[in-house]
Every structure is written in C-alpha cells, then in structure tokens.
C-alpha cells in the first residue's frame, strides 16, 4: 500500500463512525445503501475495510436503532438510524472534527512545496 493510501485509510478510519451516523441521519439506511451514500460524496471504502463491524459496534454501544423492512423489490433488509445517544455522539464528534480540522489547516493549509524537476 502506498504511503498516501495508508494515510488516507488511517484518516478515514478515525471518522468513519461519524460518517456513518451522518449518512443515516439523512434517512434510515441498510449497509450497502450507506456505502453508496458515502461513495456519492467521494468516500469509497474499497480497500479500507468494511462498514459492517463498525455498524456492529455502533449497535452494541446503543448509538443506532435497527429494524427490518422490505427494500425496493429486494429481500427484507436491516435498516439503521441514529438513536438519541447516537445523535449526541454525532454532534460531539463533529465538533471535535472541526476543531482538529481547523488546527490542522492552520499548520498544513499554508504549505506550498515546489519540487525540483
């Protein structure tokens, strides 16, 4: 794995739970549906692991609620939506993310590196 890919994986792994809570806040979703919502925003999980173990952890920690319902023309699926605790965790996580992003931007934002060819 290239250095850039490895860093991207680490960065995504740190906030993927927030991303999942964010996309299911838009509306209840089953596993692959969340993958598609993330991909539509440019976040592909190919090579980054899977969302299922993460969804399992969110469920175990009571941050999501689940129910089964028929999908469009397909078999019944397990839908996820944030619980009240999940929404609180999402709000706190987004606040932490913005603080970290601003701090990192202040360090990395002004950097311009010219490589000698």
């Amino acid at each position, binding site marked *: 794995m290239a250095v850039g890919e490895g860093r991207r994986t680490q960065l995504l792994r740190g906030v993927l739970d927030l991303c999942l809570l964010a996309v299911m806040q838009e509306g209840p979703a*089953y*596993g*692959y549906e969340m*993958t598609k919502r993330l*991909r539509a925003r440019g976040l*592909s*999980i*190919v*090579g*980054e*692991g*899977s*969302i*299922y*173990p*993460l969804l*399992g*952890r969110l*469920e*175990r920690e009571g941050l999501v609620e689940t129910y089964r319902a028929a*999908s469009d023309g*397909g*078999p019944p*699926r*397990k839908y996820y939506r944030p619980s009240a605790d999940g929404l609180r965790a999402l709000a706190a996580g987004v606040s932490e993310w913005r603080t970290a992003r601003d701090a990192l931007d202040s360090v990395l934002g002004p950097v311009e590196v010219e490589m000698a060819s």
Partner: protein
Amino acid sequence: MNDFVEECRREWKRLGVPDPIANEMAADLAADIAEAEAEGASAETVVGSGAFDPRSFARAWAAERGLVGQAPATGGRWKLWAALAFCAALVFVGAVLVLLTPAPSVQARLAVGAPFTRSFHFRAGAPPGVGPRFVVPPMASVAPPPLARIDAVRSSVTTVGVVLLAAGLVGIALVAALGVGRRRPKAY
C-alpha cells in the same frame, strides 16, 4: 460470492454466534453483495479488504457486535475452558503431592543414593578379637530397609508432583495465550 457468505457463516458457528443472529447477518451480507454485483460493482465494494479474508471479517463483525463467546455450545470456547480446568486440576494435584509428601529421611538418602559397596567385618557377641567372624556383603546387594523403601516412594511421589505442577502451569499459560489470541480479531 456465496462461498464468502458460507465461510462467514461457518466462522460464526465456530465462534458460537447464535444461529438466528448468524442467519440474519448472512442474509444481510448476501443481499448487499447481490445488489452490488447487480450494479456491476465488486464484492470488495461491500466488504472492503475483508473480501480476501472471510474468517477475519466474520470474526471482526461478530466481536464488534459483542456476540463472540455468548453461546459457545457449538463453538470452540468450551474446549478452552475444559483445557483450563484440566490444567488447573494438574496444578492442584501436583501442589498437593509436593506439599503433603515429607522429604526423604537421611537414611533413605543413604540407601537410595550412591551405592554403599564397601564391605566390613565385625565380631558379634564376643569381646574384640574373639568368636566367629562375620562378613557383611556389600550394601548395594542387600534390599533396602523398609524405611528407605518408604522414603524412596516419597521421593518418587514428590517428583511426580513437581512434574504435574509444572505441566499444569505451562498448560494454563498456553490456554491463556490461545484464548487471548482468539479474542483479538483483525481491525476493520
């Protein structure tokens, strides 16, 4: 991709995940993979790098859901507990043998230790220099006295106790290491 789902199902069964939950997870996974493939996407789109290691993927998912070790009736965890109990019994028996068996007496050490082969002479029932002369054969060729035999048995029992104690402790360490190793699924 059915092979992938079946491999996951086997791993969940091995881990003791209750059948209804394992079936539900397998059905969700199969439906998602089928939908992705119908859209022309690869299974890797759904399960990420776990596509290449279904057992680790299944283990991680079950562990994150807190399902591992909940119902080990058909899984392998009961074997770990049985092995642990067996090793603990070995330690207990070994400790009892070592602690409750007295150390061999000095006489026993003489009798069972290096053979005492030197012969000697003495005269019985008469002042020195008078009467018949008896020759006592070398001690190694004589059966040890009862006390020495008892002490020899004690020594053997202590040795067996030490061996059982050591084997039990090593076994407990191995079982503990194995148990800890199985609780650490690959992170996804």
